[in-house]
């Protein structure tokens, strides 16, 4: 149990939830203990292979074999997966030594295997940055990180602690244009890209490396959603949910990186708690239906979660969203229909950092939609 946390042996977890600086496994352990104390039943080594609209699901493990169960409520907390070398335009051979940063992390942190000695990283996602430091500490040489965008897609603290502190160069507006090596990776060529993200001739640089790690984005795991008829959001890649974290299928809830990709585990936990509480209320028959208020990403915003708010008295709503670019000296405006409800001044906003704004539920109950947008001052 604990998912990806078990391979995140660095610290930085739990600052919000526990006011402590924990490692991933330590953070996971806190919740595993809570589960055990509460006497919850669990199955490990088990894969759910089917999920249906009536909340029946099939799982399998070596001890029980395939088992069909029906939940009164089901919560999807399956996390996300990394965009793969196959999903991006990586040109050249297909040698060993090209993998996602998270795969290299599992090899290294779970079983103590170093996947390469001379490493380049494509993409400045947090896992890539963390792995730049981790591989360096284990004796590998990390020659650089290339990021397609003119800004980092990882947290600022990771740029400082994982790259700057180890003198690892970050090449912004650069990408890998070719991988070379038929059996094992031998070298890569990177180039600067223009505003259309096309490589600029003459800017090529070659690095002799045996390993290329990819940290080019995360996508919610949705392998069970189609069969159950759960609607997905085109931008988050995860299910569409209301403020109870309930999907369009009654009694099926979603939270965490399987809903939308987070930066901080603490926020994942908060979301999980909210979804769990809703599921419990659903089972008790306490949830009632209501009209929906839609939430809309306006100017400068990629998406807003939850996608709907129910028109009924409930807890305050936490709106999670991301901006589509780097913004400095801006205001975030929340509109209730076309009326400005709330406005917050922000010095800096970056796509790498998820934003959260809390709105009192009763303040929006008379609205039909809520829009969040960035206003450049």
């Amino acid at each position, binding site marked *: 149990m604990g998912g990806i946390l078990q391979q995140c042996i660095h610290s930085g977890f739990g600052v919000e939830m526990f006011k402590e600086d924990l490692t991933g496994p330590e953070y996971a352990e806190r919740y595993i203990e809570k589960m055990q104390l509460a006497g919850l039943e669990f199955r490990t*080594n088990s*894969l759910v*292979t089917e999920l249906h609209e009536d909340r029946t699901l*099939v799982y*399998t*493990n*070596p*001890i*029980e*074999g*395939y088992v*069909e169960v029906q939940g009164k409520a089901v919560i999807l907390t399956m996390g996300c*997966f*990394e965009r*793969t*070398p*196959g*999903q991006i*335009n*990586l*040109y*050249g*051979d*297909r*040698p*060993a*030594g090209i*993998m*996602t940063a*998270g*795969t290299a992390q*599992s*090899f*290294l942190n*779970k*079983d*103590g*295997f*170093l*996947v*390469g*000695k001379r490493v380049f990283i494509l993409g400045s996602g947090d896992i890539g940055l963390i792995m730049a430091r981790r591989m360096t500490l*284990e*004796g*590998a040489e990390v020659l650089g990180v290339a990021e397609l965008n003119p800004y980092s897609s990882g947290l600022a603290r990771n740029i400082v602690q994982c790259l700057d502190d180890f003198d690892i160069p970050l090449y912004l507006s650069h990408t890998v*244009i070719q991988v070379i090596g*038929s*059996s*094992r990776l031998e070298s890569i060529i990177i180039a600067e890209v223009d505003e259309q993200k096309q490589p600029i001739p003459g800017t090529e640089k070659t690095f002799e490396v*045996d*390993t290329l790690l990819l940290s080019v984005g995360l996508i919610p795991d949705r*392998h069970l959603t*189609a069969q159950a008829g759960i609607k997905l959001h085109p931008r988050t890649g995860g299910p569409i949910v209301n403020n109870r974290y309930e999907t369009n299928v009654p009694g099926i809830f979603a939270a965490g990186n399987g809903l939308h990709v987070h930066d901080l585990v603490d926020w994942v936990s908060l979301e999980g708690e909210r979804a769990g509480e809703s599921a419990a209320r659903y089972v008790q028959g306490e949830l009632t239906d209501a009209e929906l208020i839609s939430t809309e990403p306006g100017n400068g915003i990629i998406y807003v979660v939850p996608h709907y708010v129910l028109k009924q008295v409930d807890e305050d709503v936490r709106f999670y969203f991301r901006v589509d670019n780097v913004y400095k000296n801006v205001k975030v405006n929340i509109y209730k229909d076309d009326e400005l409800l709330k406005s917050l001044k922000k010095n800096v906003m970056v796509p790498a950092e998820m934003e959260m704004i809390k709105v009192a539920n009763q303040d929006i109950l008379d609205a039909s939609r809520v829009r969040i947008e960035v206003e450049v001052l």
Partner: protein
Amino acid sequence: MYDVIIIGSGVVGALHARELSKYPLSILVLEKNNDVSMEATLANSAVVHSGHDPKPGSLKAKFNLLGNRMYRQLSKELHVPLLECGGLVVATSPEEEQVLDGLFERAGVNGLLENEYQMLTREEALILEPNLSDQVSKAMSLPTTAVTFPWEMAIAGLENAINNGAQLLMNHEVTDITRSEHGFVVHAGGDVFEAKAIINSAGAYSAHISEMLHPKFFTITPRRGEYFVTDNRFPIVQTVVYPAPGKKGKGILATPMVHGNTLLGPTSNFVDFDAQHQTTPEGLNEVRNNITKTIKHVPFDKIIRSFAGSRPTADAGDFIIEETSPGFVNLGGIESPGLTAAPAIAKYVVEELVIPRFSVLPKSDFDPIRKKRVKMHELTINERNEHIKDNAKYGHIVCRCETVTEADLDAIHRPVRARSHGRDQTAYRAGAGRCQGAFCSLEVLKILSRELNIDPIDVEYKPRSFVLAAKTKGAQ
């Protein structure tokens, strides 16, 4: 002393081994790589072509049609999936309609039966393939077109040959061949073998092998083809869609694969040996730009992989199938439609060229059947649980995207022993899905290391390519 040595374990070599194993002969297959069928057989369109396309009178035309007619039984005997999906060659302009008319005529000359090729209107074609592009005006239907799984076909052919007495050695690159009193002396991988006859099925390297014994009489140039593979949860086509052929061969196809993915490609470019497996921006853009001519709703965001395969093209353009000196059979330029033609070529070569040298009769105890592997996804929950009761590994799913169980990864215990991490991706499909092995490659590596009884560090991906560079402090 072997009776026959086969050089190369692609689908051509594999099916020759199987055909020969019907006779009381000693057979050895030599493979330079650390696994079988790692070259042209590994990366191609997987299509069992109908025989409509090759130049009339060519060996390609002859063996394509014969091979197509053997595939159904062969697939049944070897338990290799065969998707009998049919094919459509589509025209999108008046000029292409003319090409199609020419092709229709050619299909008849090539010997296709009346019910094996029909000209269809757009409306008729749409019934067979609803996802044709709006420009498609006319189509030729080829109902005997099918799709196989080339790697499994080659492995299955070899397994069946081995079960019938053939031998296989991997990591044995042939470095020299000389003539001897009784036949040939073959130097490979540091060992020396003798054989009365040799079949050269070394694919892209067949000219090189031939020149060890003969003056140069053909050249092989790799012809690269680049492809996209899409996520198998979103099928795009239900039949093989060919464009009207142009100067560069059959063009860029949309092919439904036996595991539900769709293959888009290939391009066709002559390249150096070094570049034969390299994808390029130009090539993949060509696929992107051309595929929308014949089909629509192409989900480019559902692409899970791109790759480049290589066709071993001979300078003469046709297959080379001949006994170039007594006992030495050269198979050169077996490119598309070589996968389709392979069983027919094997039958011809064995029956007409090899067996007459030995004057032997077929064995009475040849078993044509390769035992079926358990395929959990084809079974009901109760049937699955029966298997899990016998073998708990069937309950342990290693690859979640393709639901490959630990029991499926029994490569080491099968007649064609897998030693490579790459094999699991391709043949057993662990890591072949949308996460491309991100979640399961560590577990697959550990299973391989345990089953092979080797250190994880020594597990190879491709020949001489390590997966792991080192162990860190305290690693087991």
